[in-house]
């Protein structure tokens, strides 16, 4: 839980806590008796002795409000707790065992939801007679199905997760699994439901008391007070105001509390900043390198990205990246998770997540018109023009990158029309042509399919068709085959290679974690580690004679040599926020010495087209 989230919880928490505390200590407060009548002083306005005035029987209103809070809160909390316990048990067991148990528990509980709640309450009160006890029973009965449904739905979700199956595989008894494993994981949703239920129970309690079916007079309750004040509304309107204010205030505070509670318990709800603003802020930064050099197709220098975490900490997951892509060249960026390869690719397109921003470096891109522009300095509208036109991207998971409610054809046509206004028939011809070009079988018919009707490999073909729709100069593919099976991966790699040959000088940046795929598709490779490029050069040379210990270890750890022991790299990838001094790889490196941790090594040119960030590269030769 971040500090900010805790802070958000604090304000409504204090209000609700104060209301509860007051209700608890009411008997100890020096207040007049809430049921002692004083007929001569009836309907008197607020005075020193009676801060909120006196009601139609001359009773002290402040005292009645506070004692009423006690009644209302006790009824609401006890009813909500009873409902929560009963409902959760029903939902948990119904969700875990399914079948007959589900029918007996959850479905039965749902039947209660079919009755109008107020009518049901009226019926029960008429049968049992009014009073706080009856009220609690009725409310618990009404709210239990809500808890049953929520815990049922959550249980179904959690039950399918591996850690529950793991418990089954261990031979745990079902009760143990439900209580130890499932309950703690469905609890956050139930907690939120609980605070909502308390708020709604307070309202319903007041309503029933107002109708004379709840708390029995002369005991104080907000509903009864509103009922009493109604008859004297014209003489003493404030009498209506106080209980209404108390009721509304409590309910609002409780609702706020559960809103915040939901935010805090949901790890995804974190501070979000619009990406638009973030880019605007990055504009002011000076460019590092002079743009005198003629870039090939893309020339990135000194690219550094900073991420601000919700708690305010800052770290740099990408530092000082330099890379060039020549027309017609395939550059592979290879690295493990957290190496910064995907962030680098996203930064080039201006698609960084809101928390991240570029804080330095240039990315010079030569457009179709021969103009050289720095992608890092372009404003969002200009970038949008380039994106999907001159620079295109293919993402890892094609299933998540296509809109599930639109047909393939419409999404493809949209991409074409976004950059080239054309009439419908021309777009249609082009779209079908593209789908054929990427080898989608039966393209004319499949074009009108929805994404879920296609397989992963077919979807990736569609994604590639969308990417090449406008004949991009640069195609960035971020792990395009990771989610696919090997035989389909081979098809997609062949397709990308064929497309590159057919296009006139399209550059390709291929981001992957798979060294073997790099060997298949790329001419040059950048090996990334902890946000830096540690080695760069032609693929065949780098793989045959690695000049950085990380590259060497990575190649050695690939299980390709048949049986026998693998060479493993000890330790784990460092977190971007906690990097060691000097060389990032030093803590895991077999060759590291004191000189390695002294200073950060620079990316040293060791021969034409090859560079390494290791000061001991000669030892590796």
């Amino acid at each position, binding site marked *: 839980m971040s500090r900010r989230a805790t802070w958000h919880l604090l304000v409504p928490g204090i209000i609700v806590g104060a209301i509860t505390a007051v209700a608890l200590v009411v008997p100890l407060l020096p207040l007049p008796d809430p049921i002692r009548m004083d007929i001569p002083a009836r309907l008197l306005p607020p005075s020193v002795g009676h801060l909120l005035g006196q009601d139609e029987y001359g009773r002290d209103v402040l005292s009645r409000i506070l004692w009423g809070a006690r009644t209302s809160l006790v009824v609401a909390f006890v009813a909500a707790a009873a409902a929560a316990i009963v409902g959760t048990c029903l939902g948990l067991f119904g969700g875990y065992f399914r079948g007959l148990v589900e029918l007996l528990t959850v479905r039965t509980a749902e039947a209660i939801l079919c009755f109008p709640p107020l009518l049901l309450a009226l019926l029960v009160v008429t049968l049992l007679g009014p009073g706080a006890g009856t009220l609690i029973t009725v409310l618990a009965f009404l709210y239990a199905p809500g808890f049953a449904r929520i815990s049922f739905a959550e249980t179904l979700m959690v039950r399918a997760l591996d850690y529950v199956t793991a418990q089954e595989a261990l031979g745990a008894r079902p009760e143990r699994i439900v209580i130890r494993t499932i309950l703690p*994981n469905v609890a956050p949703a139930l907690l939120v439901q609980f605070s909502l239920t308390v708020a709604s129970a307070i309202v319903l309690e007041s309503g029933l008391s107002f109708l004379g079916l709840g708390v029995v007079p002369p005991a104080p309750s907000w509903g009864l007070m509103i009922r009493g004040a109604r008859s004297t509304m014209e003489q003493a309107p404030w009498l209506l105001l106080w209980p209404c204010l108390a009721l509304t205030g409590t309910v609002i505070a409780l609702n706020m509390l559960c809103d915040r509670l939901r935010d805090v318990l949901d790890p995804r709800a974190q501070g979000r900043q619009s990406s638009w603003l973030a880019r605007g802020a990055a504009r002011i930064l000076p460019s590092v390198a002079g743009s005198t050099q003629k870039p090939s197709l893309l020339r990135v220098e000194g690219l550094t990205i900073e991420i601000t975490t919700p708690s305010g900490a800052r770290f740099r997951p990408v530092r000082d990246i330099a890379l060039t892509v020549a027309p017609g060249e395939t550059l592979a960026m290879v690295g493990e998770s957290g190496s910064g390869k995907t962030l680098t690719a996203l930064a080039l397109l201006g698609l960084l997540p809101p928390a991240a921003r570029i804080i330095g470096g240039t990315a010079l891109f030569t457009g179709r018109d021969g103009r050289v522009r720095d992608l890092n300095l372009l404003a969002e509208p200009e970038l949008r023009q380039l994106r999907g036109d001159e620079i295109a991207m293919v993402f890892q998971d094609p299933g998540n990158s296509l809109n599930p409610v639109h047909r393939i054809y419409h999404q493809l046509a949209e991409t074409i029309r976004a950059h080239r206004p054309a009439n419908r028939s021309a777009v249609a011809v082009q779209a079908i042509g593209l789908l054929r070009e990427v080898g989608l079988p039966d393209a004319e018919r499949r074009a009108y399919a929805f994404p879920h009707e296609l397989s992963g490999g077919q979807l990736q073909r569609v994604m590639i068709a969308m990417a090449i729709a406008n004949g991009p100069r640069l195609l960035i593919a971020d792990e395009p085959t990771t989610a696919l099976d090997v035989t389909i991966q*081979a098809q997609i790699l062949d397709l990308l290679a064929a497309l590159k040959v057919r296009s006139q000088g399209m550059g390709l940046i291929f981001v992957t974690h798979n060294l073997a795929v790099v060997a298949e598709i790329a001419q040059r490779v950048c090996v990334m580690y902890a946000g830096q490029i540690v080695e760069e050069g032609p693929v065949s040379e780098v793989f045959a004679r690695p000049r950085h210990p990380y590259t060497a270890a990575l190649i050695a750890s690939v299980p390709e040599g048949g049986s026998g022991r693998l060479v*493993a790299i000890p330790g784990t990838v460092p977190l971007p926020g906690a990097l060691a001094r000097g060389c990032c790889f030093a803590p895991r490196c077999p060759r590291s010495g004191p000189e390695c941790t002294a200073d950060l090594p620079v990316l040293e040119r060791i021969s034409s087209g090859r560079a390494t960030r290791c000061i001991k590269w000669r030892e590796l030769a």
Partner: protein
Amino acid sequence: MSAPLVRAEKLSRSFRLRQGLFAGKAEMMAVCDVDLAIDRGEAIGVVGESGCGKTTLGRMLLRLLAPTSGRVMFDGQNLDDLGRLDLRRLRRRMQMIFQDPFASLDPRRPVGRQIADGILIHNLADRSDIVDRVAELLKLVGLDPSHASRLPHEFSGGQRQRIAIARALATRPDFVVADEPVSSLDVSVQAQVLNLLADLRAEFGLALLFISHDLHVVRHICERVVVMYLGCIVEEGKAADVFRGPAHPYTRALIAATPSIRPQARRNKIVLSGELPSAIKRPSGCVFRTRCAYATTTCSETVPTLSRFGEGRTVACLRAAEIAANK
């Protein structure tokens, strides 16, 4: 030779799927008539692409999923005949390691307690000894015993997978199903976990069913390999033999399609056309024939059975001998 520890006989599993709002339910065959025997201490790899039924097979062997037909014998006992209580007791001897270490550990309980679960459930140690047992297990998988009180999110993926391995080994099982245990890990960490698995297997004499889509990984860790396609076993044999001379056209294509860091070393590249057929409308005859370069009309009429093909090797292909001869 003694009887195998685990034996699957004609094991099948189908799932009923609703096809659409108004369409009726369709029968999807996930696993179809699989026979498999695993000896004590043997590591057997199951290879195939997504949807080939390898995970379903693994779960049926552990009876986490009931087969539609066929049976599983564990150490001479038919899992079908066991009551709930006996089955729970037997679970001490068979364990599972899952693919995603971020999903297989309960995010809200300290890892030490999760490792201790199996020991407590089966009363394998006194309560006072449990802390020591957990510390011992953590050390065994290369973690610091003081980490027992931490929550799963404080560990990296590789460390979490080590914890999951410690949890599986806590009950000293005879048989472990590892379902893609390294596919969600980083390359540099994969090797650590594979080495650990190999060491522990040797140390405890575990029988291991290693499910993976990565042929190279299987070759490293397993003596024997089973290749599955669309719910059926298409080839089975010693890992080294299958790699050196794949006999089934699908195995050949799978090996050829797997990228290598030494592309020059690769033999002729075969790119399979088309996609995996739907498991609802399975092709007649040989299930692979729709993508097979060698398919003839006979292949669509006759269902090939697993038949002997050399020493300790079986292949389900009508033309296996012919293809091998022409190579």
